């Protein structure tokens, strides 16, 4: 190839960044981003991010230091992406039978912003490696390595990592609905009680550690569980049927979670699998065990 070194760096940087974005743009059961227009938006923004990252290296090499201020514009731009996602999802959430909940939406929005920075980083490193080693194939290798690594950045923890999930019997005493021994709600109509017992699945989520206990107690995290199951298994619910609401309540004593699911297809084993694989929301994670040691000592001695 007869291209100048900087051109090569930029081309490979942009390519690596763009492919990284494609790799991280997965449309799964959550059906988000919506195919195909949502994809177009994010690919276009990914391309811009890749270009920014790739151009930064030649700009710095030319001692064009002010060019770096360009990146601040980019940061602003991607924060807007986050706002856009948040607004759209919040608007749509009002019309969901089982809403995602604010935490889930924040999580998704945050991920969209974060992934653009990963793209910038990937493009920057690829471009830098081409400039340093004077060979385009070094860039290709670095790009591939980052592509591989970005897979790890995508995946977070799931419920199964922090808690045990098992089926538990639903039962009704008078007007009260329980999952095993956890009280869920008061149902006034005989008809609804019958339908809930018929179609409902009771699930018990037992946290393994103290940190998990706080995390699954988070209301946003609980809503995410209910939403995910409803997305995959469908939901036995409609407007005008307020009693048929999937619900999760805590046992106040030990932090276990009792969940009532109302799937369209009553497949108990799959429901358990789905709950196990619900992502742990970033905003719900707490680390009480990371409290400073001195503090804890003082606390325990009193």
């Amino acid at each position, binding site marked *: 190839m007869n291209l100048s070194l900087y051109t090569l760096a930029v081309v490979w940087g942009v390519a690596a960044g763009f492919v990284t974005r494609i790799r991280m743009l997965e449309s799964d059961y959550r059906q988000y981003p919506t195919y195909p227009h949502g994809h177009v938006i994010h690919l276009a923004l990914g391309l811009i991010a890749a270009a920014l990252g790739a151009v930064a290296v030649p700009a710095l090499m030319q001692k064009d230091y002010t060019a770096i201020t360009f990146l601040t514009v980019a940061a602003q731009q991607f924060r807007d992406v986050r706002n856009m996602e948040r607004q759209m999802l919040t608007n749509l959430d009002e019309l969901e039978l089982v809403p995602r909940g604010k935490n889930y939406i924040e999580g998704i929005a945050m991920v969209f912003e974060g992934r653009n920075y990963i793209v910038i980083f990937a493009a920057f490193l690829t471009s830098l490696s081409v400039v340093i080693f004077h060979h385009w194939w070094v860039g290709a290798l670095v790009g591939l390595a980052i592509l591989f690594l970005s897979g790890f950045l995508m995946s977070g923890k799931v419920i199964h990592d922090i808690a045990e999930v098992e089926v538990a019997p639903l039962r009704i005493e*008078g*007007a009260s609905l329980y999952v095993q021994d956890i009280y869920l709600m*008061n*149902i*006034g*109509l*005989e*008809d*609804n009680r019958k339908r809930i017992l018929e179609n409902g699945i009771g699930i018990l989520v037992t946290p393994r550690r103290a940190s998990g206990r706080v995390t699954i107690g988070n209301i946003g995290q609980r809503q995410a569980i209910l939403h995910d199951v409803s997305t995959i298994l469908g939901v036995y619910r409609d*407007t*005008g*049927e*307020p*009693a048929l609401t999937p619900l999760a309540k805590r046992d106040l004593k030990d932090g276990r979670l009792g969940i009532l699911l109302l799937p369209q297809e009553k497949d108990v084993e799959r429901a358990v699998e789905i709950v196990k694989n619900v992502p742990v929301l970033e905003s719900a994670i707490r680390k009480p065990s990371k409290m400073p040691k001195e503090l804890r000592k003082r606390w325990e001695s009193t």
Partner: protein
Amino acid sequence: MSKGKILAVITTQPDKVAGGAPIFAADSLEELEKKAFLLEKILDAMVHEIDQDTKIIVKH
């Protein structure tokens, strides 16, 4: 409609309830159940049982 508000009360013992929400009197437990069912669908609010003779409709 605001949240957590009692929209209606259905009872077979109207002398036991009073207050701001509309009160529907029923003659039998079957009628109580039927009226509660109808009001639930109409108001899109949930029926809760206070005791055997009284149900309330609450918007959550």
